[in-house]
């Protein structure tokens, strides 16, 4: 099962290495990891998606919590949350297919952010499934390159209070 963890950490050199090292040393899987500044100066928020059973997840959370630079660990998988990733995809195109591709991406609220002679770059944000679906639709045209940020997420509504 896939889990989404929201982890508040000190914004210090080496913190990412501590967290990534913990996952690799204990054989936990990182599917994606995003990090950026949080609402509080000096703290960063990481969104980590990982796969594993409940027992593994419990260990992941407990081990993360043991790190001195980790302030808070939340499993937000089953919370109502907003989870988004940014996807950039370079797809082959020419004068004939350009309009067609435009038609395909429009319902996804994706946009063309670069046009070359033989390719386009499409930008879209959304949850992982939506972005996967768009890639599937673009495949027949020839997907040349993909870059995805991984999920970043926040729980809806309630204010997340910190200790």
């Amino acid at each position, binding site marked *: 099962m896939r889990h989404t963890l929201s982890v508040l*950490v*000190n914004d210090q050199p*080496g913190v990412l*290495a*501590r967290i990534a*090292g*913990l996952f690799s*040393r204990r054989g936990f899987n990182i599917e994606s990891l995003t990090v950026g500044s949080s609402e509080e100066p000096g703290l960063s928020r990481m969104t980590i998606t990982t796969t594993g059973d409940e*027992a593994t997840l*419990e*260990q992941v959370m*407990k*081990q993360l*919590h*043991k*790190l*001195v*630079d*980790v*302030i808070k660990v939340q499993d937000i998988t089953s919370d109502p949350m907003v989870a988004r990733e940014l996807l950039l995809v370079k797809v082959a195109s020419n004068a004939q297919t350009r309009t067609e591709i435009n038609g395909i991406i429009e319902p996804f609220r994706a946009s063309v952010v670069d046009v070359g002679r033989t390719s386009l770059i499409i930008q879209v944000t959304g949850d992982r499934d939506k972005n996967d679906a768009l890639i599937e639709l673009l495949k027949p045209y020839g997907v040349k390159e993909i870059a995805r940020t991984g999920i970043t997420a926040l729980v809806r509504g309630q204010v997340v209070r910190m*200790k």
Partner: protein
Amino acid sequence: MSEPAMMTGAQMLVECLKQEGVDLIFGYPGGAVLPIYDVLYDAGIEHVLTRHEQGAIHAAQGYARATGRVGVVLATSGPGATNLVTGITDAYMDSTPLVVLTGQVPTTMIGRDAFQEADVIGITMPITKHNYQVRNAADIPRIVREAFHIASTGRPGPVLIDIPKDVSTQTAPYVRQDSVSIRGYNPTTEPHPMGIERLAEAISRAKKPVLYVGGGIILAEASEYLVTFARQARIPVVSTLMGLGSFPQDDELFLGMLGMHGTYAANKAVFECDLLIACGVRFDDRVTGKLERFSPKSKKAHIDIDPAEIGKNVAVDIPIVGDVGRALQALIEKAPVPDSANWLQTVRQWVKDYPLEYKSEEGVLKPQQVIDLIQEATQGKAIVTTEVGQHQMWAAHFYKPAAPRSFITSGGLGTMGFGFPAAMGAQLARPNETVICIAGDASFQMNIQELQTVAERNIPVKVMIINNYYLGMVRQWQELFYEKRYSESAIGQPDFVKVAEAFGVKGMRATTPEEAKEAIQIALAHPGPVLVDFSVAEEENVFPMVPPGAGNDEMVGGRWED
């Protein structure tokens, strides 16, 4: 208010160590720590110069394990720091409070593969409780205060501070740091009353309860509570290797060590029990054997200060996070009493029927016999450290430490070379006690150079080498599981008596039980360090044994097999 005094980083560091009450550190100088050594020259903190950084850190571990105080070790950058890695890992595995100080190349050189540069922060991240690299001298008071706090509270462990050379020489205002507040570090010490309530109920209902106790009891100074509680509730006790000394071994409730080289009674009791109360333990594989066969009939309670230990290896029914001493106190107040009279009778019978034993042979010195003789001579009142291997298990079986902090051994990492320097540290920490290192001939060779340190400082440790001319435990496994193909396990060795004498240490040899008895007497009476080389039966095995991968009910090599 007056202006804060200006100090160099090195001066601040030493000032902070004094503030923490440090009066003894172990170390080895080198280029990157020369500014610190220069301040130490007349600082009034005793520094013990070992002959290898590994000796220094194991000595600091011995000091910490024998006292409960934070051990401090100082080494230079690069090779100095990397020579500490084994000891840091060992301290991490056995939850030993240490502050490890390493020098580093100047900040301007970091990342350039400078001479004697190593990424010590990166290297030690997975083996420390926390680590710091100091970038500004002004941060030293806060960092040192935090390091000692983190090392010694919650589940103790090693904390490393890496200090670039230019930070040691940089001058900054020194602001003494008294309080400590670390947002991401708040260990839970007070156990939740609900958990205690549930455990007390489970105990009242139990018919076959067992207390499974470990090093956490010793770390938490909870031995007295354990004894009171076990006796009050009449619950038999089994101990891990790390827990030895936490419960009186001559008590009728004590069943011995459990696990791979556990007693029949301990392993059988854990297998048959209906309630297993784990206190300050971590369900190590050397204890559990095959997980599916570990205590299959019991409801399990686990008291530990580290929440991540609960449920890590074995699913637990009653988890209690907190200080094990507080939890036992709370249980003593609840005073649950199980209906366990029959059970006590059964387990006592197992103890009686299946004792730890060995066969004596005329004129042959048995390794177990040497430990027996040491026990007889000391009545368990010495501090014993061990190296790692067969002799370690025999020491665990036949030496009966009379108090906590008097059996010091490398449990989690199994570090050969640990015992001798650890004995030095323990002896310096507790100068009025007898300190004995029970060593194997191979392990002892791993830090043999520290003979010079004990000779020079006249540290009166007694090294007792159980010499079977083999990597004994390796040989035992090769005998049992590799068809006696003794690949590289017959280890050559120097004349230990001559080696001792060359370093200025009294050396003796014993080859018969009579000689052994006499040598132990002489060694214990001698005011300085002594090495005794006990030439023992070569192919003796540690039994009983649970073969690797088997369940604890599948023990081999004992009377019950006949």
